């Protein structure tokens, strides 16, 4: 027993030795101190923890990570959204790339690499940093809070409505390297912003452990897109923590097109009346991929509405997990909460674990949730084929129609069109089972 514990302890020490705390001035941040302490006590999550029941992190924790190689991206256009003008923040292997970025901003918005902001806006960062993240209880959140090297700090000033989205592009090409990007968004009263966060692998396999905190202040609107398109061997843990004040709208669409192991933890605290939360997700898995979406919407105040729809298509031997939890606290009367998860399995070897959960402590609320998992409707395939539609086209039509329900919610038109094309192309060659 003692030996086993020592073994675990040494495994953790070995894993942590992969990371270098660049910023040795631990005292500068309370959250960092908390996280450092938490790391001493927290173990790797295992499938014995309910929160990690279907996702093993052994692939992450047993890997050796090399020093991050520097690498230059000469052409950024592949990673941009064609026809969309954005503010652009580019990180290449975790390093902020000034020459690829375009953060020359107007009044009302400030976009800074967080490392720089920490030096220049120390007090402001300290006010927000680590106040939402789960670093006291979650191992990977603590890891990020201690070892984060870069990311972005964005502040949208009161009443500012951003005329173009902010696109944060994370590109990696490292053979087994680990990154801890950390983002902080403060969207002040009545401001409006669209954020796109994309994660791409140019080559190799990496472990990205991202944590993002978003403050949506009274009357503000945030429309956020998370695009995950990493390599088959990449691993990603992505925690997003949101605080919504009153009369706010937070909408997030998470699109996972590729990735070896992806775990998204999306936590929304609705601490204000008259707010709206929309969470949409689309995950398309293949090979041996494992994609896990965990969401928590916590309704603390009355008269709020939340909508959640996650849709997945699983091919080959891949696995998808959805766990959506909605809390309606005793004060949160007149809450309207809707939650839906739909999975389509393309093979007998693909699996889906779905667990929509409602925990309601108020009595005057309207909540519903549902989950379906099935295969392509063969009756419909036959129907389409009798009209002359080839089998491949029939399958493609059925799968794309299923996925499009999520894309229809995307408000940035060129982004929606780009994804529609990508998804249509992806399913062109789906043959019969």
């Amino acid at each position, binding site marked *: 027993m003692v030996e086993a514990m020592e073994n675990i302890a040494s495994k953790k020490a070995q894993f942590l030795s992969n990371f270098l705390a660049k910023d040795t001035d631990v005292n500068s941040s309370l959250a960092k101190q908390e996280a450092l302490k938490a790391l001493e006590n927290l173990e790797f999550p295992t499938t014995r923890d309910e929160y990690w029941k279907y996702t093993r992190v052994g692939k992450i924790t047993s890997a050796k990570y090399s020093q991050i190689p520097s690498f230059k991206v000469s052409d950024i256009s592949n990673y941009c959204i064609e026809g969309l003008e954005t503010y652009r923040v580019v990180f290449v292997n975790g390093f902020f790339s000034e020459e690829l970025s375009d953060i020359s901003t107007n009044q009302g918005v400030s976009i800074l690499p967080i490392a720089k902001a920490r030096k220049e806006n120390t007090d402001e960062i300290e006010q927000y940093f680590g106040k939402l993240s789960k670093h006291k209880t979650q191992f990977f959140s603590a890891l990020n809070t201690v070892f984060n090297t870069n990311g972005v700090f964005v502040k949208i000033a009161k009443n500012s409505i951003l005329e173009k989205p902010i696109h944060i592009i994370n590109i990696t090409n490292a053979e087994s390297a680990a990154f801890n990007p950390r983002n902080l968004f403060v969207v002040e009263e009545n401001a409006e912003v669209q954020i796109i966060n994309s994660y791409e692998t140019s080559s190799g396999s990496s472990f990205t452990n991202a944590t993002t905190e978003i403050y949506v202040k009274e009357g503000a609107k945030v429309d956020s897109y998370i695009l995950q398109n990493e390599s088959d061997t990449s691993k990603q843990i992505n925690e997003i923590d949101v605080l919504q004040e009153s009369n706010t709208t937070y909408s997030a669409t998470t699109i996972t097109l590729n990735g070896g192991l992806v775990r998204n933890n999306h936590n929304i605290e609705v601490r204000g009346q008259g707010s709206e939360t929309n969470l949409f997700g689309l995950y398309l898995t293949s090979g041996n991929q494992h994609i896990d979406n965990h969401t928590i919407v916590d309704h603390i105040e009355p008269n709020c509405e939340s909508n959640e729809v996650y849709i997945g298509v699983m091919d080959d031997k891949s696995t998808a997990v959805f766990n959506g939890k909605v809390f309606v606290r005793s004060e949160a009367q007149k809450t309207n909460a809707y939650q839906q998860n739909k999975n389509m399995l393309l093979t007998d070897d693909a699996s889906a674990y779905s667990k929509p959960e409602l925990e309601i402590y108020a009595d005057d609320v309207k909540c519903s949730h549902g989950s379906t998992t099935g295969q392509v409707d063969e009756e419909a395939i036959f*129907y389409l*084929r*009798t*009209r002359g539609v080839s089998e491949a*086209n029939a399958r493609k039509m059925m799968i794309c*129609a299923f996925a499009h329900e999520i894309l229809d919610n995307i408000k940035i038109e060129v982004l929606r069109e780009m994804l529609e094309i990508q998804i249509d192309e992806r399913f062109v060659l789906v043959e019969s089972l």
Partner: protein
Amino acid sequence: MLRIKNLHASVDGNEILKGLNLEVKAGEVHAIMGPNGSGKSTLASVIAGKPDYEVSGDVTLNGKDLLDLAPEERAGEGVFLAFQYPVEIPGVSNVNFLKTAVNDIRAYKGLPPMAAKDFLKMLKEKQALVELDKKLTSRSVNEGFSGGEKKRNEIFQMAMLNPKLAILDETDSGLDIDALRIVANGVNKLKSADNATIIITHYQRLLDYIVPDYVHVLYDGKIIKSGTKELALELEEKGYDWLTKGVESSELKVKS
């Protein structure tokens, strides 16, 4: 045009069609009637190429062997089945579905895709033919359609695809008299000297609107009687008993 010889079909070891013969010539309308469970819908599904059946025998359309072809290839050869229960397909719009269907059939025939302008023109024409609400065309295939709208949508698709052989499987079921008239009207307008129609029905009612050249009675997987439209009237009056009793006793004789 259509020639069926000694057609057998079974599903999960149960033989449903037991040596069926039928010949349909261009320009003709054939009605197939018969009691429940006699194999009428199976015949329709087997001609269209539903994969659930084990099939033997010969089915040719203008000399081409259909049984070797996939459902979409049969559609390419000119087979169309109007379903008894049209399938709802959420998320697939009628227009996109028809565009793909029309162009996949054109590709099968070695033709280039239809120009968007021509397609829209055809769409409008055929929509008018079956008095289909314009809104339904842009909606998802059959999703939330009433029974009558679904059947009308079947005939609309038939009009768009212009088949050589159309099989209407219980197209009259669930239709009120106005919808029946519209559907029948559509079918009659689509009739020509080059195509043929098989109407599968329980009731004489539809045959008042679409007048058949021949009426066949299908029972226990075989056609046991063929005649002209008067046969349908006789069936309406007398039911099937007078025909099926004879079959059973003759089978008994064979067995004994």
